[in-house]
């Protein structure tokens, strides 16, 4: 059974129809990377999975369970952890409270990380643990956004541009983290602009264009597909 199985997904923001029938599936323990140009609909795909867009249509199965009609919080409890593009750090909460905010998910199948493990991975956060979340720098906020879903026991992580705006060292640390997580059996769906960051991590690539999947291939075919990929991603 696939961890995530999406069939003919349509999504709207108000009256504008953004996703036009996305199909994709991710096996447990795999890393899937969504590529595409700005505005192609990758973020929308992740948001649609979480039920955060306007209207949705089609089928999204999480560990086999249909979620298209569920409210967002019920979907999350099936074991999904979402790290949004705009980071979503809470200004009224301290760093620590931000970290502790997401509850243990009833359907999460992964072993939650402890706070100590997290602070070890992101020492910046340990240092700023008592300051308000949005007083962190842009990059620190990004770390916090990733860190806080690791505590919940979510086993499917939806990561939107997590390397955006981060210093190279941190980006490298994140890459190592994802490799580790994958080894621990996490299922990961990543949206990345930074191909160099994503390329070595992914098991499977999907290219989205105008709300549709225009290419889908495993990492093994990457070299073969490179030319097509360049064409799809360049202008």
């Amino acid at each position: 059974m696939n961890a995530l199985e999406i069939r003919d997904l349509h999504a709207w923001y108000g009256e504008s129809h953004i996703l036009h029938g996305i199909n994709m599936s991710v096996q447990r323990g795999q890393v899937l990377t969504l590529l595409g140009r700005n505005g192609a609909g990758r973020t929308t795909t992740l948001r649609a999975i979480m039920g955060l867009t306007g209207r949705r249509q089609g089928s999204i199965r999480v560990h086999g369970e249909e979620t298209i009609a569920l409210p967002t919080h019920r979907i999350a409890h099936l074991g999904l952890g979402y790290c949004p593009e705009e980071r979503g750090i809470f200004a009224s909460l301290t760093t620590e409270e931000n970290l502790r905010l997401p509850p243990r998910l009833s359907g999460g199948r992964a072993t939650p990380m402890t706070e100590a493990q997290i602070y070890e991975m992101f020492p910046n956060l340990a240092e700023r643990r008592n300051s308000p979340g949005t007083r962190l720098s842009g990059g620190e906020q990004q770390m916090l956004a990733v860190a806080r879903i690791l505590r919940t026991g979510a086993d499917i992580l939806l990561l939107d541009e997590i390397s955006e705006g981060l210093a190279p060292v941190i980006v490298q640390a994140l890459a190592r983290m994802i490799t580790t997580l994958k080894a621990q059996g996490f299922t990961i769906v990543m949206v990345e602009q930074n191909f160099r960051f994503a390329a070595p991590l992914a098991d499977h690539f999907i290219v989205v264009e105008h709300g549709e999947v225009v290419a889908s291939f495993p990492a093994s075919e990457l070299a073969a597909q490179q030319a097509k990929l360049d064409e799809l991603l360049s202008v």
Partner: protein
Amino acid sequence: MSELILETRGLGKDFKGFTAVDGVNLQVARGAIHALIGPNGAGKTTCFNLLTKFLEPTRGQILFNGVDITGERPAEIARRGVIRSFQISAVFPHLTVLENVRIGLQRFTGTSFHFWKGLTGLKQLDARVLALLELVDLREMASLKAGDLPYGRKRALEIATTMAMEPALMLLDEPTQGMGHEDVDRVTALIKRVAEGRTVLMVEHNMKVVSTIADRITVLARGSVLAEGDYAEVSRHPAVLEAYMGTEATELQGAH
């Protein structure tokens, strides 16, 4: 006039016991493109806020053209020709593209307090506005609402508005953040073009951009200057490698 357009001496800023910027001595030479880089949270945006007095420095001095401007208000500093852009794009969304730039030019007409005048007086600025828009390839979009522009174009509009102020020193905070490759190249070229005859101080994470256009680079880390020099020097600096660029620095590829 001195070689230096901007100089800071021991600039520092504390936030409730946390020191975000600490004893920074920055020297920006006239006519250069000077990049400020550093890990996240190093204090780059804070530095910009101090230079333009959007934040009050806790210690230190700021000199512009040799004059101490530490005590001046943001608008005064802007009128001296120090114009900034923002990390998050800053346009006037409900004004048209043309009006956005014209607001910048309008200050020089001295009519800004004239509430009894019509707009006809401002129309004579339109030719200059269009020339500026031409420079950033926005001429065709002059009558659109700024809020309807795509992200990359908004950044370009911002630069055009900044240009309208005839700035002696432009402060650009991450001008390429959140852009696709095409836009990054376009904006890089644009900066290079508009930098002629003026000074640019920019914060940037994209090492490709920095390496192609920056004449001089200051690396901040934990609020203070870690290293300074041109790209070749800085990228070899061991402390910089450790704190910022990491092992892949040789690839000349940053976060983008």
